[in-house]
């Protein structure tokens, strides 16, 4: 009994390590990320693709009010998984840092620099008393010196750079799919196709243009934009057509 109480004490304040060196509150925050719908990032030589799952709980909900994709600056976009409200705070922090960089140096902020400043902010909430960690992970996609870059942040304040990555629910399966199918020479169109197929992996209901969000940072123009629902739908249609074709092939054999 006593032991159990002691164990519990280690997840009360986040500034307290457990005897085996763990920060329980940070681990719980990672669980919160897993409960969020998935977001996927794919880096290609032509740009970075972000695809988010924004399936709605009710047909009466306005899909456009689901915030999973965020413009950070002209050349940077972000996708989130986990607590939306926490994501909004981080996204606005990132937007402000981007503008501070322009005021201070008259230069667009580097994607790595931006990610580090966001993760430094996240890290403070794992060490300061009276606060809780951010229950959200971000994918930060952008162009830096003409090069596409894709970073991930997690609730501990760690960042990693990826070629292709998934966060949120069903991460394991989606990541495995990406690992099998990723090719370093993909076009942006191929990247969107790959990310949508990865999102489709292990899903029961079909993808729809309203139910997904697609953001692209184009390496040539160095600008971030989000696709309209009908544009996303046409990519989904292409995937379904391709799937039908391969079914036909199977029949012939």
């Amino acid at each position, binding site marked *: 009994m006593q032991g159990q109480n002691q164990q519990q004490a280690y997840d009360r304040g986040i500034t307290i390590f457990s005897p085996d060196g763990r920060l329980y509150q940070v681990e719980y925050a990672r669980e919160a990320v897993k409960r969020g719908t998935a977001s996927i990032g794919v880096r290609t030589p032509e740009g970075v693709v972000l695809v988010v799952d924004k399936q709605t709980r009710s047909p009466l909900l306005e899909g456009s009010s689901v915030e999973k994709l965020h413009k*950070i600056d002209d050349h940077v976009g972000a996708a989130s998984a986990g607590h939306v409200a926490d994501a909004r705070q981080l996204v*606005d922090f990132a*937007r402000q840092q*981007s*503008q*501070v960089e322009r*005021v201070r140096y008259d230069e667009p902020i580097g994607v790595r620099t931006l990610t580090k400043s966001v993760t430094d902010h996240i890290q403070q909430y794992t060490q300061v008393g009276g606060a809780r960690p951010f229950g959200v992970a971000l994918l930060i996609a952008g162009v830096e010196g003409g090069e596409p870059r894709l970073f991930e942040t997690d609730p501990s304040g760690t960042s990693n750079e990826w070629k292709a990555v998934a966060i949120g629910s069903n991460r394991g399966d989606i990541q495995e799919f990406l690992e099998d199918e990723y090719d370093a020479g993909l076009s942006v169109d191929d990247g969107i196709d790959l990310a949508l197929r990865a999102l489709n992996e292990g899903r029961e209901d079909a993808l729809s243009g309203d139910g997904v969000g697609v953001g692209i940072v184009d390496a040539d123009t160095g600008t971030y934009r989000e696709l309209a629902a009908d544009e996303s739908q046409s990519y989904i249609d292409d995937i379904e057509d391709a799937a039908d074709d391969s079914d036909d092939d199977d029949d012939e054999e």
Partner: protein
Amino acid sequence: TTIVGLTTQDGVLMASDMRASLGGRVISNKNVQKVEEIQPNAALSISGSVGGAQSFIRSLRAEANLYEARRGEYMSIDALSTMASNLLRGGPFFRVVPILGGVDDDGGHVFSLDPAGSSMSDTYTAQGSGMPYALGVLEQEYSEDLTMADAEQVAAHAVKSASERDTASGNGIHITKITHDGLTTVGHKEFDALL
């Protein structure tokens, strides 16, 4: 300095001379662009302290970009002028007397601003040491039904007149046109082609 801003049928036309001077006695730079884009539908012309104006423009751009990133659309020109006036009123931007011009859903707008935070909407306005000469021309030649091409001639005439008589203005002209299609700035070292 001479800067002018005119509303036209299709938007806004702004013009500025190219001279930076030390008290109007020494020309410190002969090729200055005094019009800067703030967002794709708005620009600011600067007169007064160069350092103050450059810093002011950086702050304005940061606010405009943040607004766009947060809300997915650019500020209306009314909103931008209010924001600019608030910055001037509370901020350390000494001795800047800008003109703000831009196009939004309600059409073209020109605002005169000053360091105390005043923000006055107008159909045409001028600022800088050459302002009296430029206004003299604008009073004669401006009308609200000007096309962009007409307005370019009127603005060039105004800046040319000021350049002839004001020692702190000259060395050429920049013309900035803002319409719903976007913003362009072109520099001319000679006035002849415009008149």
